[in-house]
């Protein structure tokens, strides 16, 4: 018997003012997957995460979360679904006017019925998980980029989500901090049995984290398989992306600077 996917993007098409961004995406995300979505900058990777969260609605096609049709849910049901999904943003998106404690406590206070003492305990526990204990009273502006990413991850973990979405988790970080974040993603998702979708264009991070890699090119998934399959792929687009070569189909598609 085949496993039921946690998320299913079924022939999803998305266009902004008539310009297609995603052209019939077909992707299944299974429980406990650590799926990395690779692709060029501006290629629609982050857009896919927003579609899963129901922040954007597809032009055509369907997004299913278990048996729920995400793009047809009412506002209240969508909010309920979102509380089961954690999201870590590229630039952390911590609420700048709240300290670390209040940032983490926010989803629990707004969506749950837990007493304040229990929320406090939960905040300490999640901060310890990401190695940020003792920063409860700090404001986001007092933290470095890596620390903000870790606090953002702790906030995403507050409601024990089934799925965590990471938008460029290592963007703007030095290689060491980038590896620390990658290890954190691996350890936490294994420890909590969480499914995760990581959007990145950094190959080192992708191969370190992924149990499965999907490659997005010109609005479609052109490769979906294990990291080893991606490495040995004969597809010229995949090969160029993996090796980072200047010559290849990807650069041929770019508009010539002299002619534009």
């Amino acid at each position: 018997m085949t496993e039921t996917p946690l998320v299913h993007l079924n022939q999803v098409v998305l266009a902004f003012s008539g310009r297609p961004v995603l052209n019939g995406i077909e992707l299944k995300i299974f429980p406990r997957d650590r799926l990395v979505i690779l692709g060029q900058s501006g290629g629609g990777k982050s857009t896919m995460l927003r579609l899963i969260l129901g922040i954007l609605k597809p032009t055509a096609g369907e997004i299913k979360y278990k048996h729920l049709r995400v793009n047809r849910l009412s506002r209240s049901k969508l909010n309920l679904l979102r509380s089961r999904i954690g999201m870590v943003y590229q630039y952390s998106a911590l609420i700048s006017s709240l300290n670390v404690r209040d940032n983490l406590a926010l989803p629990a206070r707004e969506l749950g019925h837990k007493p304040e003492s229990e929320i406090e305990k939960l905040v300490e526990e999640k901060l310890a998980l990401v190695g940020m204990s003792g920063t409860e009273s700090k404001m986001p502006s007092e933290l470095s980029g890596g620390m903000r990413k870790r606090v953002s991850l702790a906030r995403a973990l507050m409601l024990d989500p089934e799925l965590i979405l990471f938008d460029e988790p290592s963007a703007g970080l030095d290689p060491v901090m980038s590896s620390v974040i990658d290890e954190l993603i691996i350890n936490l998702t294994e420890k909590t049995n969480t499914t995760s979708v990581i959007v990145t264009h950094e190959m080192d991070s992708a191969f370190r984290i992924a149990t499965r890699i999907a490659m997005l090119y010109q609005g479609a998934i052109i490769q979906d398989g294990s990291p080893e399959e991606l490495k040995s792929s004969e597809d010229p687009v995949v090969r160029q992306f993996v090796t980072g070569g200047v010559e290849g189909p990807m650069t041929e598609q770019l508009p010539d600077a002299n002619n534009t």
Partner: protein
Amino acid sequence: MADSVRRGRLPFRPSALFIQTDRTAVGSVPLVLMVSFFLGLTMALLTGYQLEKFGVERLIPSLIAIAFTRELGPLITGIVLAARIGAAFTAELGTMQVAEEVEAIEAMGIGPLRFLVAPRLVAIVGAMPCLSVCSVIAALIGSCLISWVTLNIVPAFFFDAVLSSLLVNDIVTGFFKAAFFGLVIGLIACFKGLTVQGGAEGVGRATTGSVVMAITSVIGFDSLFNIIVTQYTK
């Protein structure tokens, strides 16, 4: 937000409302008092100068009281709050929008309307009538002082004339007008903030637009209200 009401939950967190009320109402008291005090003083001085020629300067207390209770109190408070609080709401929400904070709140399953808009809106609607009362009192004190000094109208006579000239209708009209202006300013400021596009420049543009639109709307609605009232309540 509607869902919160259906589930028997307040459409905002009480602590958030407390914080917003503190900055909106308490924080605006000194500015409203100062502006209204000087405006009342100037108005009494200039009208007194004219009315003295006809020997009817004793009408100054009722003129100031009715003008400020029905008209200038809510209007001045509206303009001050549109500039001071409307701009702050738009800039704050706009910056949060640009930094993806609003989307992050939405992605957590928290309605941005309940978390960001409702406390601000309720705070400004509640603050406006209270600040309008402060404005009227400050204007009366200002005009009373100048009338005493320049026209020899003693404070006891002044306040006696104020109380005998004011009708409940004036007070109620001013009160509701102020609350309505608060709603207009709050809605414009929050809408402008949550629809910011284009980074820091966009926040600046939206903030200016919010203040201009809020002040124009307050004056416009005030004129419309006065036209309706004078035409249909003759």
